[in-house]
């Protein structure tokens, strides 16, 4: 970012900028620019180099985030750039998750994209920029900034979803995503406007202060209307029922590595934003929005798990299952709501972030396998028939991911679910916790179906050969190992996640 030009006549006092704190963001955006500019100026790079560079940039952002985390642990959280961004462990955690997703997805995307004329820097640049947008969402301390981050992420996603131009499904998913996303963004923006009117500011910190002093003001209704619309926009992004309708179509139609990115980084960013807005910004209205979170959670759990059951397409199954996972994460949000704005924040936020991290790895792994087995939108269940006989390791990895998604012990999926359930129970949301677990049982049927196909069906004779490129193998392998190892020994992650706080 270049330093702003200053007109002599305008005494503009720019806010202090703490560059290192912004370094992950700058790395990602700068990396995107680098890819585009250098990519444009040089001839076609050697195979896989774009992906490699992209992964390195993502990794670098993650590492920088870890340094920042350390800094926050030592010196406490702060806000950045005039209160526009929060600089806290919550933001850094999201940054790490999203950056990690960039790394893994870049590795997955490599071979996938190499087969298309898109094998240039653009896709990776968009990935990186989307990641930056996601990080802004999760760190935003200002609703306008949040909106801009959301738009950055969304616009990149729209394009990425439609990026496979040989596929009608990809185009359709891109358009659907775009129209619905624009629709939802408009609601979100309108919500920001109304909340702005009611609180006099878009800055979360100022919102909290002004709301705390609001007294007996009639403005509340305006704020409530605004919250309703904010929830629509965020609900859309996190794919909570009934705002999930786009999810299955887009997840199915989008190129599979992109789907993986949406389901991981997209969700992490959206949930980050949701928590920022609700827990950080609107704790004084928690009695109003908490029931809605409850309803959204239940609706997502039920809709996601029920509809997943009747699918034939594996990508759609996973899409619906991601809806039900959103419901699960909302259980954690609901738990956090109970103590929103209080000194002891409870376990909700930590559990949500832990879930997002663990789920991201699982879902990237899952879609990574799908990407290798069924390259296009037509990932019918029958494509997976007998996978265990053809590619035992791949089938084994997929089984691990599916078991993890089902919440089987000794996988991270279980730790994640346990975390949110624990948070929910801690907040005495017993009903929600039970509903969540029961729907998890229904959802388990879906994963079992895929496993049955892989392990117990016979291979179709005319099944095309599956090749497993090295980078994808590394990504999937890492995800599988992580899923198992962190499932077995999660205490470090839990320890870290417990340190997650929101700047106040």
């Amino acid at each position: 970012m270049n330093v702003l030009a200053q007109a002599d006549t305008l005494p503009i006092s720019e806010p202090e900028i703490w560059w290192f704190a912004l370094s992950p963001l700058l790395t990602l955006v700068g990396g995107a620019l680098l890819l585009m500019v250098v990519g444009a100026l040089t001839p076609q790079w050697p195979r896989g180099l774009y992906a490699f560079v992209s992964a390195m940039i993502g990794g670098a952002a993650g590492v920088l985030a870890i340094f920042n985390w350390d800094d926050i642990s030592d010196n406490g959280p702060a806000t950045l750039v005039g209160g526009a961004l929060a600089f806290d462990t919550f933001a850094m955690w999201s940054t790490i998750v999203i950056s990690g997703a960039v790394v893994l997805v870049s590795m997955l995307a490599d071979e996938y994209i190499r087969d298309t004329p898109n094998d240039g820097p653009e896709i990776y640049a968009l990935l990186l920029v989307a990641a930056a947008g996601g990080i802004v969402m999760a760190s935003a301390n200002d609703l306008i900034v949040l909106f801009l981050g959301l738009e950055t992420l969304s616009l990149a996603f729209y394009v990425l979803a439609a990026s496979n131009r040989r596929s009608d499904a990809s185009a359709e998913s891109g358009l659907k995503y775009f129209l619905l996303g624009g629709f939802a963004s408009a609601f979100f923006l309108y919500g920001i406007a109304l909340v702005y009117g009611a609180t006099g500011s878009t800055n979360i910190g100022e919102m909290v202060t002004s709301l705390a002093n609001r007294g007996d003001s009639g403005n509340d209704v305006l704020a409530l209307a605004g919250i309703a619309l904010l929830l629509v926009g965020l609900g859309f992004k996190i794919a909570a029922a009934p705002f999930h309708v786009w999810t299955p179509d887009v997840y199915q139609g989008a190129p599979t590595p992109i789907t993986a990115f949406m389901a991981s980084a997209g969700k992490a960013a959206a949930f980050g934003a949701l928590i920022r807005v609700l827990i950080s910004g609107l704790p004084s209205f928690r009695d109003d929005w908490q029931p809605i979170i409850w309803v959204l959670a239940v609706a997502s759990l039920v809709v996601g798990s029920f509809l997943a059951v009747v699918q034939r397409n594996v990508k759609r199954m996973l899409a619906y299952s991601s809806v039900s996972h959103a419901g699960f994460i909302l259980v954690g949000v609901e738990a956090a709501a109970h103590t929103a704005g209080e000194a002891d924040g409870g376990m909700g936020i930590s559990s949500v972030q832990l879930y997002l991290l663990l789920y991201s790895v699982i879902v990237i792994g899952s879609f990574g396998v799908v990407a290798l087995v069924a390259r296009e939108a037509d990932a019918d269940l029958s494509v997976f028939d007998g996978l265990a006989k053809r590619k035992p390791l791949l089938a084994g990895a997929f089984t691990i991911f599916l078991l993890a998604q089902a919440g089987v012990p000794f996988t991270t999926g279980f730790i994640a679910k346990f975390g949110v359930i624990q948070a929910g129970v801690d907040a005495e949301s017993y009903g929600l916790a039970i509903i969540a677990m029961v729907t998890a049982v229904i959802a388990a049927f879906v994963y079992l179906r895929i496993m049955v196909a892989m392990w117990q069906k016979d291979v179709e004779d005319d099944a095309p050969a599956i090749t497993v490129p090295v980078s994808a193998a590394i990504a999937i392998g890492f995800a599988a190992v992580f899923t198992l190892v962190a499932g077995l020994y999660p205490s470090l992650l839990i320890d870290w996640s417990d340190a997650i706080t929101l700047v106040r």
Partner: protein
Amino acid sequence: MIAAIEPSWYLIVASLLFAIGAFGLLVRNNPLVMFMCIELMLNAANLTFVALATSLGDINGQTAVFFVLVVAAAEVVVGLGILVSILRRRPGATADDLAELKG
């Protein structure tokens, strides 16, 4: 303040505009027109921002509108890009024609 018009009037008019936009998105089949409807909704939001900024006496609302304008521009560019790429392959396709993914 000099404006005699109650801020709530603006807000109500804006909500009408917003609703018309939303209605249009639901009933129109042409993706371009649907797209325009989204612009209507964004404009409604803008009007709301400005009205509230005026009543608050706070410049931030106006700044927000500025950003929304940029967003709208970027969105249009991207959206039209997607549309073009689709409509080039399938000329005259309506939103309802793009319904292969379902269930």
